[in-house]
């Protein structure tokens, strides 16, 4: 369906214009990663053992930062009404937005993960597992995020409410993402965790899209 393709292209064009999120995400990501080693101290073993967790948690938090203006701009300039009334399914629009959000927040994290793993002297034999788990997980985070963002859109408050709504939704994915890395470090089979993670993504995506779409319809009433 070329219709959806057009939607995606369109939102990407817009996303490219607003590189702010990517910048903010990266900044946050770097800072968070820079702060943790302090607490843990120089002990490389200790650092390495938490590296995966740190990277994952920062990824999760980073993706929630720019959620509040995932749809708000469209709501306030009136585009959302038009998008809701588009004859193409609203889910497509949401998917496009999620993709844009992922490119702005998820992709940078995936790209930076090896570097951070290196800095936190993470066992580099397992770095590809970390990257893989992030590559599968971050899109799921964006999807979960879009649900939260669209739900609070019509609400009186954003900020904390968004976080409170989104973080629980993100949990399962992160659990298995980290699980995969730990398995790799412990020499246990990685595949099961990765598969479950992928399953969550595949099964969750349609649900998340439907939910966001429904929430957006409520927001424009």
């Amino acid at each position, binding site marked *: 369906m070329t219709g959806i393709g*057009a939607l995606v292209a369109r939102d990407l*064009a817009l996303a490219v214009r*607003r590189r702010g999120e990517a910048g903010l995400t990266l900044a946050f990501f770097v800072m968070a990663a820079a702060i943790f080693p302090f607490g843990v101290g120089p002990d490389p073993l200790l650092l390495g053992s938490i590296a995966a967790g740190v990277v994952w948690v920062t990824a999760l938090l980073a993706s929630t930062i720019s959620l509040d203006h995932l749809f708000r701009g469209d709501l*306030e*300039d009136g*585009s959302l*009404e038009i998008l809701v*009334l588009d004859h193409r399914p609203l889910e497509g629009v949401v998917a496009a937005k999620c993709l844009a959000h992922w490119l702005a927040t998820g992709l940078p994290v995936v790209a930076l993960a090896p570097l951070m793993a290196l800095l936190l002297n993470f066992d580099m034999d397992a770095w590809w597992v970390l990257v893989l788990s992030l590559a599968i997980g971050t899109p799921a985070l964006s999807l979960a995020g879009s649900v939260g963002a669209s739900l609070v859109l019509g609400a009186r408050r954003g900020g904390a409410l968004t976080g409170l709504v989104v973080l629980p939704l993100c949990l399962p994915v992160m659990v298995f993402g980290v699980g995969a890395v730990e398995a790799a470090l412990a020499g246990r089979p990685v595949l099961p965790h990765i598969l479950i993670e992928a399953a969550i993504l595949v099964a969750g995506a349609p649900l998340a899209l439907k939910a966001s779409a429904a929430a957006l319809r409520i927001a424009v009433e």
Partner: protein
Amino acid sequence: MAGDGERPHLLEAANLACERGGRLLFEGLSFSLPPGAAAVVTGENGSGKSSLLRIVAGLLPATEGRVAWRGEDCRREPGRWRREMVFLGHLDAVKPALSVRENLAFWGARDEKLLEEMGLAALAGLPAAMLSAGQRRRLALARVAARPGGCWLLDEPAAHLDETSSGRLERMIGHHLAQGGIAVVAAHTARGLGDALPIRLGPGT
């Protein structure tokens, strides 16, 4: 002109009622439009013009009644309705970061002569953030003009427009009606839509 039997009516609204914030804005509102016909919705502030348009568009669930397009209930068969319907609310749906031309492209309107008709040709390359209020409204209208022939729902389309552009708007609607399209226009004066079906809404606040 609305209501004459021989032509099939494209848009039919049957005893619509709308309650908002606990106030009943209107009820038992019915009208229908044959090809080429327009309706102009007038009424005081808060009388429910925008609400009516949003109900017809399908953005707002009606408290009562139904809207049909080509005989099909719009709620049940939204696909075809949305393909042929264009909605313009109070907001312009303009992306400040994009240029005028890019904004039109954003809504799938790539035809350069739209810019001509709306007098935007000179501004085509300008970022929409630099447009004046009226210019921005014209950009919003250009998006509508890109899809003539269906059903236009326009909420105070002439807001912020000067004489020249109001003329452009009238021509644009005329051309649309001439193609067998229909239009429901919310406005404070019926001028420029002389022979349109008048829909007067009750007291406002």
